[in-house]
């Protein structure tokens, strides 16, 4: 906190703009903390409160607009990229889209307060063809709530923040421990994913050149090529491997019940 306050005092609005912009485009930086610190700097007359809000809103709206335009122009690809950290990226896309559609535009008003969701909502709105005017108005409202809430806390409790800043060593130690615990949690999470997927690593794989050769050599009758991507993943006009069939992973055993066991099955996703 002491470092952020000192940084804001020295470089002011530029630092605030960069931190808030980075968070808006999905980089995990502490924008809320920067807003609180900026609010406190406003109370101490190092920064002007109206400029803090203007800077924060401009940076947030710029970041959100970039993600919105990318979502609009890349279909579901950007959302697929953002969902890669999920255990099941394809159902992540489907669930996010359905949830956003069901809860409607209200999501835009509070999404900024939820880490992870904040950077998913603008590309979702773009992918789902929300009008930019409507998106901008709702995003402006949501961004205003966010900026006023955190900068307001900093402004109103600037005295407490001053005390915290003076006791930065104690706070710094606590933050170090929190970061260490968060790091351990992340390592445990990655290890659990690795452990869960270790059995899948022994599944044999085929190179695309070898498969294409097999198909060209007329072995097609003894081969089934199956697309196991989720339904929700597809954009209109999506392509798949020629002569492949759809195999729904969630309805797998029912579908293959009648399939002959003497055929080789080659599976692909994205």
């Amino acid at each position, binding site marked *: 906190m002491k470092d952020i306050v000192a940084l804001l005092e020295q470089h002011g609005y530029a630092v605030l703009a960069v931190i808030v912009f980075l968070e808006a485009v999905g980089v995990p930086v502490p924008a809320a903390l920067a807003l609180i610190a900026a609010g406190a700097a406003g109370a101490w007359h190092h920064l002007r409160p109206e400029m803090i809000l203007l800077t924060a809103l401009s940076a947030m709206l710029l970041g959100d607009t970039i993600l919105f335009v990318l979502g609009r122009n890349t279909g579901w690809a950007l959302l697929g990229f953002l969902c890669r950290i999920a255990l099941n990226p394809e159902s992540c896309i489907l669930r996010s889209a359905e949830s956003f559609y069901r809860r409607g535009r209200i999501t835009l008003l509070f999404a900024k307060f939820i880490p992870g969701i904040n950077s998913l909502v603008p590309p979702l709105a773009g992918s*789902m063809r929300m009008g930019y005017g409507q998106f901008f108005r709702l995003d402006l409202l949501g961004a205003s709530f966010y900026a006023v809430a955190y900068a307001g806390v900093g402004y109103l409790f600037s005295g407490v923040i001053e005390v915290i800043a003076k006791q930065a060593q104690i706070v710094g130690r606590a933050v170090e421990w929190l970061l260490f615990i968060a790091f351990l949690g992340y390592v445990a999470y990655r290890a659990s994913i690795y452990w869960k997927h270790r059995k899948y690593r022994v*599944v044999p794989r085929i190179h695309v050149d070898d498969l294409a050769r097999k198909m060209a050599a007329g072995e097609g009758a003894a081969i089934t*090529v199956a697309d196991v991507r989720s339904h*929700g993943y597809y954009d209109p006009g*999506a392509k798949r491997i020629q002569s492949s069939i759809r195999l729904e992973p969630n309805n797998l055993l029912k579908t293959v019940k009648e399939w002959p066991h003497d055929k080789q099955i*080659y599976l692909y*996703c994205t």
Partner: protein
Amino acid sequence: MREATSARVAHILREHGFDAYVIHGGLRAWTKGGYPLEPVPSDDVVLLPTFS
């Protein structure tokens, strides 16, 4: 993990006695290799909801 869905499905199929393989690199590698593609049939496409 790359190929997570296809590897999971192949593993299940192999457990049930099928001779299943994963295409290394998936659709991306196939496309990059310049091999033939076809449009996904409209019956298989479930469009996600849109506001328009």
